[in-house]
């Protein structure tokens, strides 16, 4: 499993109810279900990935995370996880509010656009940065929201939620290994991970 997902797994209490948004082929949900007896649910837009999840015995709904959350009653979940999907969300404040309506807590992770390599690319080359975490050009990227770790902290004040736990990590896109970054995280971490709760 990807390093960031392993870290998220360690934040989740055993036996809790977890909803994974954009859960892909269900690696995190499967680990949580089998290792932490979590009651898992997922939402994923790709038919192929949804099939992979259901074949594993996971409970996953094919759909758009911007539309699917409305049907869940308040506090249906202990955690709602948005892993590396924030950068593709059309309306982040609304989504975060929905996540904290249907979940007691939420986990959000995203590629850190403040990483020094990205800053250097723009500074030195003059082109919009293309990185391993965000490997697209400006004209074909699905990533419409790039943000830094600092941005997310300011966002918490603007939207009104509490950051309960955070981790800045250095890992590559599909890497199983990584390190926690404590010194100058906004410069040195490739990803930011946050556990958030209601204000």
């Amino acid at each position: 499993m990807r390093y960031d997902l392993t870290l998220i797994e360690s934040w989740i209490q055993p036996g809790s109810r977890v909803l994974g948004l954009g859960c892909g082929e269900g690696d995190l949900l499967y680990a949580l279900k089998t290792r932490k007896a979590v009651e898992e649910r997922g939402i994923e837009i790709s038919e192929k990935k949804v099939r992979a999840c259901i074949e594993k015995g996971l409970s996953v709904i094919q759909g758009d995370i911007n539309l699917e959350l409305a049907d869940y009653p308040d506090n249906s979940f202990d955690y709602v996880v948005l892993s590396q999907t924030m950068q593709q969300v059309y309306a982040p404040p609304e989504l975060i509010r929905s996540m904290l309506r249907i979940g007691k807590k939420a986990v959000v992770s995203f590629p850190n656009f403040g990483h020094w390599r990205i800053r250097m690319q723009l500074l030195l080359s003059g082109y919009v940065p293309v990185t391993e975490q965000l490997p697209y050009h400006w004209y074909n990227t699905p990533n419409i929201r790039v943000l830094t770790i600092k941005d997310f902290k300011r966002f918490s004040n603007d939207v009104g939620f509490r950051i309960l736990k955070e981790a800045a990590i250095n890992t590559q896109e599909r890497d199983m290994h990584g390190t926690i970054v404590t010194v100058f995280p906004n410069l040195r971490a490739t990803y930011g991970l946050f556990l958030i709760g209601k204000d």
Partner: protein
Amino acid sequence: MSMDAQPRFLKTEKRFFTFGEKGKGLVLESGAHFGPVTLAYETLGTLNKDKSNAVLICHALTGDSHVAGYYGEYEKKPGWWDTMVGPGKGIDTDRYFVICSNILGGCMGSSGPSSINPETGEPYALDFPLVTIGDMVNAQKKLVEFLGIERLHSVIGGSLGGMQALAWCYHYPDHVRSAVALATTLRHSALAIAFNEVARQAIVRDPNWDKGYYYSGEKPSMGLSVARMIGHITYLSDESMHQKFGRRLQGKDAFSFDFDTDFQVESYLRYQGAKFVDRFDANSLLYITKAADYFDLSRYADYQSALATLKKAATKFLVVSYTSDWLYPTYQSRDIVKVLKRNGLDVSFCEIEADCGHDAFLLPSDNLSGMITGFLSGLHGKGRG
């Protein structure tokens, strides 16, 4: 070739279960009493010791109890869902005890308008009472009890079979661990009712229909074949008809400039219609389409409390739709998912990309098999009982 190299021959047989003699029959949703009731059924696989591996498969409009395997060496074709049900298949008969019965009102061995009324010695014809999907399920429950099963591991069905699977969950929320609803709906739409009504009108306007009492004379074959043609159109899609037939002509190079068959699609529909009258009873089609039209789970007053019971029982659902199904389009499956989500139930949903229309659920599909296998396995050790 040695004997071992041959595929395993899954043998099954048609059985009959009769209950409700001497006034102890079913109280139907219409309020009428009906009995005795006979259900034709078959079973595949072995019921385990704690009777926890039973899977009930519900057939669609014109299906029967012969879901998979062969009745004997003489049979050319296996049961209607043999690609899904059998040893090592999506619904694995090495693992599950599979039950399938012909629906109440049908004409493949279960009580229906063409079966003999013991009081008169004649076919019931229209003396057979109107039945609902709920009545069909109530009859199946008696069979399941007779087989000694308290709680089904799963109820699985597509189309009208999916309605039965959902109705099982409503009527017997404590007796189903899971349900698989394929290409189906919570309530029959105006479009679906409209097609059914045209099919029924084709039958009742056939002079041979004779107000339903045609069993001693000519059958309303013309009406029934037209009804089947309409049905077939709704099971296909624009895309599949385009691929299958296009505008190709049947056995000719130029238009005939009369009302004979010109196009392949015409020929196909006529063939399907003609083939159908040999195996299906026109009155059964009237009764079953009416049952489908009446289907609307949300009309029941205690619908919400059934959902609460299902939540307590941790019943799991798998809902599947097909992109080109215009009889039960994806939005209707999403409505099922929505209701289940709102009530905190455990539901999985997948819309399978397919251009062959409503029929897609019956066609061989590794995608569907894989999901059903995973879904049924995922149930083990979860939930109650």
